[in-house]
């Protein structure tokens, strides 16, 4: 054969040729010093390029690599779960509100602009929605001041809890205010349950639970790397999850079933119906408008 082109030599070096073509080029290179030299130069150039391009990677933000969620890499991390104390419990006889905040996940990313903040409202358990109305209103009325565990700019909770929970069961995205609110209505048949919040970035994630007051119904919080769990007792609890604006990926599950996932600017309610939670009015996930 005649001298192969540079492109053909490259394809040969990249093992992209079919068997017959490869044999031809190989045979030629064996006997042609010029092409053998060209092939060696090409391979060295490609190796050099890899090194030179790697230089660019040294200019990457340090957080990029650590943003990977090592879910599969750490299957046994549940063993390191630690129990958190309920942070503030209102005296018996009133609606109680307990909360916990946990660092979850990876180092902070300082270069990401504040894009949105989300407040998710998850009403778990309880009887029919109509019966739950007074309870929610009562609970909202008696809410104590939230703990200042999350910077105000990140945990946006400007809408009254009871109003949001009762006004609509649909997903509403409020891009103008930089907030996103998801309200989930309860269904009959719920009982004890576990709500789990998993996040990708190291952030303060605040989970607040409002229940009718009784010792028996005091929720328990657990925290592990990237996770914050709430073990609910009884029914009729309102679980509020405040997520920081910089969060890139999150999932909220109830008794193992995913009910909401979050990615970047999008909040995606999942269609799955669980034993104690139903998400109504679901549609396509809605991306938030950039600010």
């Amino acid at each position: 054969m005649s001298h192969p082109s540079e492109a053909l030599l490259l394809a040969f070096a990249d093992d992209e040729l079919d068997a017959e073509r490869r044999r031809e080029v190989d045979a030629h290179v064996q006997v042609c010093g010029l092409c053998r030299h060209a092939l060696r130069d090409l391979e060295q150039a490609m190796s050099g390029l890899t090194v030179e391009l790697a230089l660019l990677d040294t200019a990457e933000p340090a957080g990029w690599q650590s943003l990977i969620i090592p879910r599969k890499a750490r299957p046994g991390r549940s063993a390191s779960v630690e129990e958190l104390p309920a942070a503030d419990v209102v005296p018996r006889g009133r609606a109680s509100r307990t909360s916990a905040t946990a660092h979850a996940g990876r180092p902070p990313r300082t270069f990401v602009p504040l894009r949105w903040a989300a407040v998710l409202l998850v009403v778990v358990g309880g009887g029919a929605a109509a019966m739950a109305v007074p309870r929610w209103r009562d609970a909202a009325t008696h809410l104590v001041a939230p703990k200042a565990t999350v910077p105000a700019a990140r945990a946006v909770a400007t809408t009254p809890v009871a109003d949001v929970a009762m006004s609509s069961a649909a997903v509403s995205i409020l891009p103008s205010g930089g907030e996103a609110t998801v309200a989930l209505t309860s269904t009959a048949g719920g009982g004890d349950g576990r709500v789990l919040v998993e996040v990708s970035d190291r952030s303060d994630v605040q989970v607040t639970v409002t229940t009718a007051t009784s010792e028996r119904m005091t929720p328990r919080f657990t925290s592990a790397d990237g996770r914050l769990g709430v073990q609910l007792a009884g029914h009729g609890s309102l679980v509020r999850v405040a997520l920081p604006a910089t969060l890139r990926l999150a999932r909220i599950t109830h008794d193992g079933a995913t009910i909401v996932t979050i990615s970047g600017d999008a909040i995606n309610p999942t269609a799955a119906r669980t034993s104690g939670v139903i998400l109504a009015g679901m549609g396509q996930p809605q991306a938030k408008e950039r600010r």
Partner: protein
Amino acid sequence: MDDPRSWETIYAEHRVELLRYVHRLTRDVHLAEDVVQDAFLRLWRETRTVENPRSWLYRVCTNMVRDHARRTATRERHTPVADDAVSPSPEEDVERAESVRLVRLALERILPRDREALLLRESGFRYAEIADVIDVRCEIVPTLIARALKRFHKAYLQETTDVAP
């Protein structure tokens, strides 16, 4: 999306490499963040029809970078783009920062489509996949890469010579 966990796996496996690819194409950290995030958002909505998410994501990112380049072409003709992320304050970083700058300048001398092919090969794609991502015939992919490689090293050598004392 039916299976959020699988989406998360895709996200975890490909996010950083996509960021790196777009960053190499654009030398803009923030643009890379935005492009990759948008690509994942699109995947989120379209995953049921996506057979090869990795190629799909690369294609979406490539197209978004092209769109962005078209939109900003006029402005950039008059406004030099500042290098991002390189702040060689420690003395030992000066040399590395200069090398990064030279690599970037050399990459800019490559035609956009050739540069995409070159960087996709560096990302481990086979020629057929590269052809699919940048929408060219598979037969011309090695030609694009070989041409890109030649231009890159010529430009890199030239830049290195220009800055040599």
